[in-house]
């Protein structure tokens, strides 16, 4: 087992355990925080997989912004306290975990897919690109060239989301 793999498995374990705790904690605040933990572990894995920029974004956007928003709303609605459990009963939990396990098995079968060798880049290509163009440049080039129109459309989507959120959440406009 190489060092990279060792690190990978460490973070994989962290992320799975955190994810499990995230879905089983009673307190929504705890759930959110465990998810943040999962996100950190995933960010580390992203960086292992040569996606430095995305790793940083993962922390910046997901952990730093989206999850803070979640926490904020949970706290604002005061859902974190004295709500009892919001889970199903024992029978329900077992059934649902079984469904989840079934799904996991099926997906694991799919995960054994091997990409067509004709399209696979030589090992280390991405790392080399990142080295040459910098972490940001590596993703900026395709983003602003091949995916320019989706990028612009995304800006419209975000604008729509801002307007929508304000309209929905504001009591009186």
């Amino acid at each position, binding site marked *: 087992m190489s060092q990279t793999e060792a690190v990978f498995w460490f973070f994989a374990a962290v992320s799975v355990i955190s994810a499990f705790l995230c879905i089983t904690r009673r307190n929504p605040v705890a759930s959110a925080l465990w998810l943040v933990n999962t996100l950190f572990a995933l960010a580390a894995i992203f960086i292992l997989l040569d996606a430095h920029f995305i790793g940083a974004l993962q922390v910046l956007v997901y952990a730093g912004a989206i999850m803070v928003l979640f926490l904020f709303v949970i706290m604002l609605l005061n859902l974190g306290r004295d709500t009892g459990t919001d889970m*199903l009963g024992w029978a329900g939990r077992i059934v*649902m975990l079984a*469904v989840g396990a*079934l*799904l996991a*098995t*099926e*997906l694991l*079968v*799919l995960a054994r897919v091997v990409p067509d060798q004709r399209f696979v880049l030589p090992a280390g290509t991405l790392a080399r690109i990142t080295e040459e163009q910098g972490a940001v440049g590596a993703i900026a080039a395709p983003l602003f060239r091949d995916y320019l129109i989706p990028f612009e459309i995304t800006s419209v989507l975000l604008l729509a989301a801002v307007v929508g959120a304000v309209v929905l959440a504001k009591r009186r406009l």
Partner: protein
Amino acid sequence: MPATVGWVWLVLLFPLAGFLANGAISVLRLDAKRAVTTIGVGALVLSFLVAVAVMAGLAGAPADAPYVLSLWQWMPAGRLEIELALQVDQLSAMMLLVVTGVSMVIHVFSVGYMGEDPGYARYFSYLNLFVFFMLVLVLGANFPVMFVGWEGVGLCSYLLIGFWFENEAFANAGKKAFIMNRIGDVGFLLAMFMIFQAVGTLSFIEVFEYAPRAFAIGGTAITLITLALFVGAIGKSAQIPLYTWLPDAMAGPTPVSALIHAATMVTAGVYMVARANVLFAMAPISSFTVAAVGAITALFAATVALKQWDIKKVLAYSTVSQLGYMFMGVGVGAYAAGIFHLTTHAFFKALLFLGAGSVIHALHHAYHHTHSSEEAQDMRNMGGLRKWMPLTATFMWIATLAIVGVPGFSGFFSKDEILAATFARGHEAAAFYVLWAVGVVTALLTAFYMTRLMIYTFHGPNRSGEKEQQHLHESPWVMTGPLLVLAVLAIVGGLINLPAVLPGSGWLHHWLEPVTELSAAYLPEVHLSHSTEWVLLGFATLVAALGIIGAWRLLKPAALKPAREAPEETGIQKVLLNKWYVDEIYDTLIVRPIMWVSENVLWKVIDKGIIDGFGANGSANLARAMGWLGSRLQTGYLGTYVFLFVLGALILLRVVTGWEL
């Protein structure tokens, strides 16, 4: 490219800016008449100056290939690459000058004619927009750009015909023009598709360059393409069978009739045929069709014009007839002659319309003063007007002599050249002699009905009414000034292409040579001996004189009664008055069957029965029934839905992964 030719985009810019500015004034309902005038007329003056500069630049540095000013890439899609490009060559520069020049004069005239109309700003914004689109049409360097202009002028024509849209008949006239034009546009579109299919490009230069390799001379493909193009030209230039909109288009303000429905837009078809001269020259059948349709239209419209009482209707049919002449010219391969007639016609027909406008303006004022509801455009209500309107009468006579073809006036040369070119091809097929004969008869009729118009309007006793006579007076200088300009052009316009038989150099002919030489290879060499030409010239003069004198002798303006007392017409006169009943025939043959089929088959059976019954209501009922069934499954709980969803996903995954693990 000479520097001034590079300015050509400015020609487009000024009218567009004028449209935007005046449109804004109109939309905002600003009261800024002076500004509207300045902007509207000023844009055209600037445009005209630039056009002159472009023409001068081109004349100073003649080139073999046209100058193409590519503004930007418009539609890059696969093999299709269309640029928004302007083409300046001898033909488009000529048209540029005619369009901006005549438009400028008519804009000035409009200042007086429309001065008291509440829609003054709207009028000028439309007019500027029209000029813009007309220039796009003329300058376009490929078929799609030309088509944009083509559609744009159609739109403006619609807007201006229905300018007084409160009147339902006027609004309907606008719609009629629009629909007739659409029928022709289908032809243009089809032609574009076929050209792209065959040649793989739509730019003029490339199409005309590759055409000899892409098509066989007289082959099916080129014939179909040119016929389709000609269908477009028929619609735009009001030829049989799509001419009926043009007389109705007289519902618009008179300057509009002068500009759009006489001098510029309707000639677009002629321009297009001349532009695509290579294609037409390669398709003899199409060319002959063009000439034949032109000749028949010329004769037909002339007969109708004989018996119209509305002064503008007479001029409208006269326009249709003259357009027929132009098509005859370009149909027999005399492209320069066609453009020549187009140019001279622009001058004298604009003059005639503006003169008529001046008369109508005066009469309208008179009736307005006496609160009479008489028809201000009916010649039966005119007569003897030269006493009150000497300038208008003089100018109109000049125009009449020009259109009739009296030697020395511009129409004489252009009309004669077309007839000569037709006659010259008579040795190929006798059919050309027939066309020539038709042209001559038309010339006779033209002389007759134009003289009739002049006699009834300006000579003999006045029939307007006693009270009204006190209010008749000459139009202000903003209206007579343009008339003067056009009158001068109508006299000297012929000088640009004096035939060689007179001591002329045929300047226009040489000027257009770079454009028309492409087609020269496919046309038979025609040559008329000088003696034959002299004979033809003499014959034409004779015919013109015969028409004028005949009309002078036969018509008795003193016996004419005003419109309110006029007796019912009978016999052939009634047929002519009702324009050969063509509108009624169209109504019976096309409109009514379509209406019947639409109502009884398409609407009642197909739409209400099949589409609504089975399609819309049926599927709605089905959905409702299914929904009722499905709603039994709905618990309203998110958990249930998600659970079922996941189960479905699991089953799908099973299918995707297959059954092995």
